[in-house]
């Protein structure tokens, strides 16, 4: 009897661990399915004219966002490029808020002022989609600098495409991060194409990870189509950042199944249909589904049910966004400066909205005047 109890004692944590692992794996599939279905719906909405401007879909790269963000803590910082719907969803920003932002509606993450390329959620450490290629990489370095300055153990992760590595901002930012030993993970999503220009037509070196040697920075090449591989590589990079304040360059090999944006075709002048079809054989959602089936964690019926659940959630987000109100007209002039009210509403100009009170006479002069035109 004692022996049975001991065995049970040994096995129980292992069963728990298995259950937790299964739950985690199912969660990753759910997130990847959510991104896939969300992006399909976003593409549809764009075609119907409900989403304006540029719209860069993430289909094919889902495992990168899901696997990498799974390695982060809630208090870590995330900085993205303009192809960031997937990262936003993986970070737990509600699909309703993301879709509403794509629709430019008031309940969107940036109240309709940001759009597809500028999703923000400060509460989740999601510090924006940024639309100038490479320009956000120094911002991430700055956030990592702030972490070191405050001596906390947070981590910043910065996502960018392979086209950004030929940009000066990339070099400057990585050099300073390595020089100053900042806790940042630079995650290059190498999907092979900067808009319509293949890597080998833009880059003297095809192996992006090699760039890290310029900064004596640890690097790793990761298969971005496998979510577990992605998660494990990111775990290592995050651990280095958190405990050693050492930055890492991850070159994540992935592929986008859609065009650069909704305004260009899936294939055409710059790549062949055959090439896209070849890459589709390693669809990250399908790969992970098969893995879960092989491991006995889910069966096909369960996956179909999960997919149906996600499709319903996306439909709800779409309906929410469609029915959501437009921003008020008065929003046009808010959020340009802090603490300001629109001058047309008689608000106070922000010159006096500083942390400290201005000198007494100065305050009198200011308040006696009409608002300043900014």
């Amino acid at each position, binding site marked *: 009897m004692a022996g049975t109890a001991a065995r049970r004692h040994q096995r129980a944590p292992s069963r728990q661990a298995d259950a937790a692992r299964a739950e985690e794996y199912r969660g990753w599939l759910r997130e990847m399915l959510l991104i896939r279905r969300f992006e399909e719906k976003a593409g549809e909405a764009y075609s119907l004219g409900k989403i304006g401007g540029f719209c860069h879909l993430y289909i094919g790269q889902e495992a990168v966002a899901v696997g990498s963000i799974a390695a982060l803590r809630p208090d870590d910082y995330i900085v993205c490029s303009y192809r960031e719907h997937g990262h936003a969803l993986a970070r737990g920003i509600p699909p309703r808020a993301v879709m509403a932002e794509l629709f430019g509606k008031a309940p969107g993450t940036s109240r309709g002022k940001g759009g597809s390329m500028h999703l923000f959620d400060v509460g989740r450490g999601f510090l924006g989609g940024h639309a100038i290629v490479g*320009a*956000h990489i120094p911002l991430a370095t*700055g956030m990592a600098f702030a972490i070191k300055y405050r001596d906390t153990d947070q981590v910043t992760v910065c996502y960018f495409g392979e086209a950004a590595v030929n940009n000066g901002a990339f070099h400057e930012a990585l050099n300073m991060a390595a020089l100053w030993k900042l806790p940042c993970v630079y995650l290059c999503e190498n999907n092979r194409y900067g808009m319509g220009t293949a890597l080998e037509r833009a880059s003297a070196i095809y192996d992006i990870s090699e760039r890290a040697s310029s900064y004596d920075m640890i690097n790793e090449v990761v298969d971005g189509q496998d979510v577990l591989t992605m998660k494990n590589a990111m775990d290592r990079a995050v651990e280095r950042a958190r405990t050693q304040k050492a930055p890492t360059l991850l070159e994540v090999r992935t592929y986008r199944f859609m065009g650069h944006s909704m305004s260009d075709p899936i294939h055409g002048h710059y790549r062949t249909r055959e090439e896209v079809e070849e890459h589709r054989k390693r669809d990250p959602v399908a790969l992970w589904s098969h893995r879960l089936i092989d491991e006995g964690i889910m069966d096909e019926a369960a996956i179909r049910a999960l997919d149906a659940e996600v499709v319903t959630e996306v439909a709800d987000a779409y309906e929410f966004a469609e029915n959501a109100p437009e921003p008020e007209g008065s929003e046009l002039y808010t959020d340009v400066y802090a603490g300001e009210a629109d001058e047309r509403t008689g608000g106070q100009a922000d010159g006096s909205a500083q942390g400290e009170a201005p000198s007494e006479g100065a305050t009198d002069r200011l308040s006696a005047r009409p608002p300043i035109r900014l």
Partner: protein
Amino acid sequence: MTTLTYRDALNAALREEMRRDPNVFLMGEEVGVYQGAYKVSRGLLDEFGPMRVVDTPITELGFAGVGVGAAMVGLRPVIEFMTWNFALLAIDQLVNSAAKMRYMSAGQVGVPAVFRGPGGAALQLGAQHSQAFEAYYAHIPGLKVVMPATPADAKGLLKSAIRDPDPVVFIEGEMLYNVKGEVPDGEQVIPLGLADIKRAGRDVTIVCHSKSVAVSLRAAEQLAAEGIEAEVVDLRTIRPLDEATVLESVAHTHRCVVVEEGWHFAGVGAQVVDVVQRDAFDQLDAPVLRVTGADVPMPYNKFLERAAKADPEKVVGAVRDVLYQS
């Protein structure tokens, strides 16, 4: 009151703000070990250490972006550009990142950073080192642009700029660093967006900023000898622009000359003229004239350079023109 140079007044403002708020740090080329290319940061490394006085590589775009990123998560960076000529490499970070962040995030993310350094022409530095860029930055909603003309203003305005929740472009006069002036003792914070009447007068309003203030004051002295009393209005902040003070002065004098160091085309003065003709049209007894730098890259030759710059004689000439005395 203490007599300080413009340079030391800026240093005092930095030191006081860094003592007051641990989130304030200084970053830029040569700010630390070298003690500042123009010695504005002299002694700060010793007092605050290398985490708060950060020497950078020569990477304007990169370290401006680092400043923006640090500000996005709550630090208060003061980013020094060795000159605003070099800061052109970083203009993307100021325009596309710093200025837009609050709006794009619907108020979630602010950028409480100051970008500062010397601007304008010095002496015979040639075309690439002699430029006044305030109009570039003042054009951008989301940025504030501050240009102190005196040591007292330099100190009070820099303290305000550091405490401001928005990105501030703080352009110091390269030729002003050695200028001495009375600086009030103790805490003296000058709000942004408030012009200052540097000289009272009844006959004409001269609107100016930064180095042009000294030029305008010298012109006013010459004019006074002829019995013409000019009122010299120092904008101090280009954006937000203190329209009220300009308009009050013009309502009083009925004539206006705008003086600036920058180029004529689409310069700061054009904005002032817009304000005056729109809101004080009936007050004007003459068209508003502008005295600016010549619309050419700055020549190296000292005679040509002198010809390209706004000077007191040109201001006196413009004043005579608006008084119909020429």
